[in-house]
């Protein structure tokens, strides 16, 4: 069996409409992209792809609606897998055919096509705010998503600042003020008198002397043991059992216990791009 182009395949598999002037499958979705960047669906219009060349794309519509020049038109076509795929043209020319249908000639261009041309729109970390941003306006991507032109894809789940959604760094720190300037207390328990005190209380010119009972030259293991005490914060002087994971926002400098971080799902947008050149005779 000779190999067929996707367009031939699509044409072969689609039921051919009687009123279709084209060998290509009908357009399944037609949208007008006006200059004010608002996309609007053109309801109840039947259309076809008439011709595709390396420069021009010609479409035909069974309608009397005007497509003003320099407006943009986004159209969709059902692919074999049932998914509707999209392309955008910048309208160069608009005329009525002899059969009373509307013909639109344009070339592949526009913001939506720019978006469609990338396989995935993933958020990147803004170096200024340390928040996740998109190269294109997120509102537009969301709008396209709502229209089914791109679809949302889960990429990752990250912890972000509860204050500004910026990216934090994490460190062990004080439970009370979040400071990383903490130390673990070392204490000595003198068995004989039961006294427990900080090592510094026992140290006296290189000797270990109990500050309570004044016994001198204590021997570790036999006379005393070392005990790890609490952690102490140099900044707020509070003590606590264990340092906590503390988040510090790179964006707004806010400090917070790690468990208070917001869990943020990093979502990307995957365009449903129609490979329009596949319909050109040259391909």
């Amino acid at each position, binding site marked *: 069996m000779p190999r067929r182009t996707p367009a031939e395949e699509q044409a072969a598999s689609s039921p051919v409409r009687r009123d279709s002037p084209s060998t290509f499958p009908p357009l399944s979705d037609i949208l007008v992209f006006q200059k004010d960047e608002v996309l609007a669906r053109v309801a109840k219009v039947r259309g076809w792809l008439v011709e595709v060349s390396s420069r021009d794309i010609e479409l035909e519509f069974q309608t009397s609606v005007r497509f003003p020049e320099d407006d943009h038109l986004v159209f969709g076509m059902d692919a074999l897998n049932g998914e509707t795929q999209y392309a955008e043209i910048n309208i160069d020319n608009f005329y009525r055919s002899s059969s009373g249908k509307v013909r639109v000639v344009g070339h592949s261009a526009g913001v939506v096509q720019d978006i469609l041309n990338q396989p995935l729109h993933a958020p990147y970390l803004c170096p200024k705010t340390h928040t996740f941003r998109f190269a294109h306006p997120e509102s537009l991507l969301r709008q396209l998503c709502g229209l089914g032109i791109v679809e949302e894809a889960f990429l990752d789940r990250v912890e972000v600042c509860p204050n500004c959604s910026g990216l934090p760094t994490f460190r062990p720190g004080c439970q009370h003020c979040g400071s990383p300037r903490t130390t673990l*207390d070392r204490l000595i328990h003198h*068995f*004989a008198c*039961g006294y*427990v005190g900080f090592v510094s209380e026992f140290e006296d010119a290189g000797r270990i002397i109990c500050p*309570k009972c004044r016994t001198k030259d204590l021997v570790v293991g*036999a006379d005393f043991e070392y005990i790890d005490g*609490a952690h102490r914060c140099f900044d707020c002087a509070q003590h606590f059992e264990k340092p906590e994971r503390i988040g510090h926002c790179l964006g707004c400098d806010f400090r917070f216990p790690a468990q208070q971080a917001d869990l943020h799902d990093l979502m990307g947008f995957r365009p449903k791009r129609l490979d329009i050149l596949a319909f050109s005779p040259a391909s």
Partner: protein
Amino acid sequence: MISWDFALNGWTFWLSALHRDELWWTMGGLLLVDGPRYALSKAVMFLWDALTGNWPLKSVQDQEIEDRYEPSVCVVLAGYNEAETVEATLTSIWGTYPRLEIIVIDDGSEDDMHCVAQNFAQDHAGILVLRKPQRGGKSSCINFALKYTEAEIVVVVDTDSHLAPDALWEIVQPLADPQVGAVSATVLARNTTTNLITWLQAEEYLHSIFVGRMLAERLGIVSVASGAFGAFRREAVQRVGGWDVGPGEDGDITLRLRKMGYDAVFAPYAECFTNVPESWPALFRQRRRWNRGTIRYKCRKHVDMAFFWYPNFRFSNLLLLLNVWFFNIVCLYGFWIYVLGWLIAPPDDLFFFLWTTYVAYLMFHVLQVAVALAYSRNLRRDAATSVVLPFVPIYQLFRKCARLISVTEELFFRRSFDDNYVPWHVREATWHW
């Protein structure tokens, strides 16, 4: 019925035929000592309170919150392998007092006491949980905790004890007086109804602790703020260098504070509920520890409280020692010499003598129960506890046995240093008073 009547008639006949001096000689020794000591003294105290308008006693429930003394409090819970009980204890304490911090010290437990306490601390603010690498005894735990609090008052609670809801409020009130260094509280049995042994102890605590310490306070001779529940002024405790090695460290520090010039008082309505031993051997071991401590501290380590030529001598401290020496040693041996006399040359009518002694003890004890109930804030509970009354004289005999053994072995052999209440490496290192 006939035999009962006969016995009763026989006894009354025997009693009436008895010469008064014979009665004194045979039982007077016992009755004259234990009677006044335990029963008459308390009855006199009650009469005094009633006449001076001191009765009923005031408690924090009679006070507006803003009128109460409200120092900052640090509760220290020190325990070894108490994973099963520590959470309930924390629950009974947390949130019952406004200026409260809690420090839990795990004394090198082998169970997950530490984790249980930590989990509790995660959901409840103001709790610090610390862990020692190996068991070092209760004193070292409390001393460890002292390093981590700035609170004015340190309250020590056993990890298996529960506090009544207003217990912390009650126990801190006497500390409004800067002269007071230690406050003793009422310890009651939590497992009263488990069996006769626990019930008898519950009944005993009511008299020896609740009313007994009330009386001791009037005489100025409170000698212990129990390890189960006691409050201490932190500044005073630090002046004496914290707790010394136990067993009996609770009594020891109370006496050391007294020697420093502080007073030890009693808060009768600061109630703590603790599990008492449930078998005779366990009870015997506990009493042995307590009695040995009495000898170790009041006959040896702190005998200088009686030295009137010392600059810090106080008459109340001498009285405290005299009370112990006379009642816990002289009378104890006196009692057993009496018994020995009976055993060597039993009176012809030994049974009647024993029965008369029993009835006399019982009557004195009824008087004690009446006094306890007069001061009680929970009449129903305390009356129910007193139901075991008929068995009390027998139980007192058990206590006298335990006391004879433990006092003797401690007086002559210093056995308290064999007690594994304190781990071996600490017992070995400390001074054997």
